[in-house]
């Protein structure tokens, strides 16, 4: 099978993408896959890819200037102004921000005040780390339905929207955007 991007080389990287609940497969050669920011050596990075959390570390060192699908800020912009563009930048630049937060903060997990609708929840929502792990497991076992459900749960937890003053619908639109933006680079 030939690569779907260049149409020349043999496809050796087989990707499965989920957009909402539709499953979509992609077949790429190693060069085109790498050029798209996909680490060909680490299958677990699939979940990052799906989440829009960005490509794994290897791609970063190859100077991929990631962009936040929500507000259009590039990570290079952030480096210049030291201020993020929107709340979604935290997810979009998660890999880059992690060492930064590690260096400047006491911990990596919020333990302080929560908005009332979080604090009042009977069940403490699972941590996003544990959700991401579950997502990776679901992807590894090719349980895509379950993976899609967990992905939505992660986005819901991160951008829960109610009828109060806020921006326009975030949740699954953000997930769709982030995958879409990855596709644009192909």
């Amino acid at each position: 099978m030939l690569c779907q991007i260049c149409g020349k080389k043999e496809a050796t990287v087989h990707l499965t993408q989920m957009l909402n609940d539709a499953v979509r497969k992609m077949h790429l050669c190693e060069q085109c896959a790498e050029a798209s920011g996909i680490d060909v050596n680490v299958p677990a990075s699939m979940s990052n890819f799906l989440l829009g959390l960005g490509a794994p570390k290897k791609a970063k060192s190859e100077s991929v200037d990631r962009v936040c699908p929500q507000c259009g800020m590039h990570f290079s912009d952030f480096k210049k102004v030291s201020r993020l563009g929107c709340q979604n930048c935290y997810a979009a630049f998660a890999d880059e921000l992690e060492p930064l937060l590690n260096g400047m903060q006491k911990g990596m997990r919020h333990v302080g005040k929560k908005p009332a609708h979080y604090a009042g929840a009977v069940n403490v929502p699972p941590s996003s780390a544990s959700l991401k792990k579950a997502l990776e497991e679901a992807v590894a076992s090719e349980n895509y339905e379950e993976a899609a459900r967990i992905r939505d749960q992660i986005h819901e937890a991160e951008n829960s929207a109610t009828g109060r003053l806020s921006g326009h619908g975030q949740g699954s639109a953000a997930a769709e955007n982030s995958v879409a933006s990855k596709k644009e680079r192909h």
Partner: protein
Amino acid sequence: MKAVDELVKQPGSWLKVGGNTGIIVSSRVRLARNICGRRFPAWAGEEESVRLLHDLTPVLGRLQACRDPIVLEIGALNRMEKEILIERHLMSRDLAEKGKGSAVVLKHDESVAIMVNEEDHIRMQAMSPGLNLRNLLKQIDAVDSEIESSVEYAFSPQLGYLTACPSNVGTGIRASVMLHLPGLVLMNEINSIIKAVGKMGLAVRGLWGEGTDAAGNMFQLSNQTTLGETEQTIVERLEKIVLEIDEHEKSGRTRLFEQKENQIRDHFGRAVGILTHAHMLNSKETLDMLSALRLGLEMGLGGGWQSAMIDELFLLTQPGHLQKLEGRVIGSEKRDLARARLIRQKLIDGHI
């Protein structure tokens, strides 16, 4: 603007007359918050900022916790008024430089101030004289909860309240305390204290915040980390360190008197002489002399002035306040004349 004229007539929430402040001058707690789904101010552009302010104004304008708050749009303030608000610690210099779409909302007694579209969509603070962090946290927490009942904040269970700068993410809290530390400065111990405090994760700044030096021996101590601990833990640690520094300052003053009594009496006497007789005083010299006067009064070296009046002079001799009292914008030489005149009047009239 009438609202600002009214403010100038009162002593400022961090320098309440009657509150004998001493070494620990004032406390402040601020929270940074953003609205879900809106771009952060610096990335949003004017149109979006104007819309956000428009949406937030009705919410902030009727806060129960602020009882008939004063809403001041930055675009409607002149330079002198902005300067006054900065000098009173009611808004930042960064906010003053913003145009349309930014505002500050104040409680009448200035104990609560909420900046809209500064670095974050909302930055709310509670401020009072003396060491009062726990109460201020309660107070600002109530304001925050009230705003949250009509607004959806940008929040993630993992990272907490999401802020424009990752250095504020999580709790979004910045608790700070202003300290007057002439004893440690004169004993040459201040640098080792600043170093030690830095190692404990606190930042030390001057009287008017980031980038200002410690004129008048005034130092602001604040927490630097916001993620991974509760607001209470952060506030209690700062309080503990502040109390330790308070002890160091007291011991510094005792040793200063034991070791350098003549010098310290001379230091105080010269400050009284200059402040009551100088014809021109610049800002820096004024702060240094007021600091020496304050120290001498607290050490019982003489005087007969109320310390609250000295504190008031720290504020009234700043350029914005001075120009407001003069009723016009004046250049630096005229300001130095006006400053010396004001101090002479206050110290001579206010002498018991």
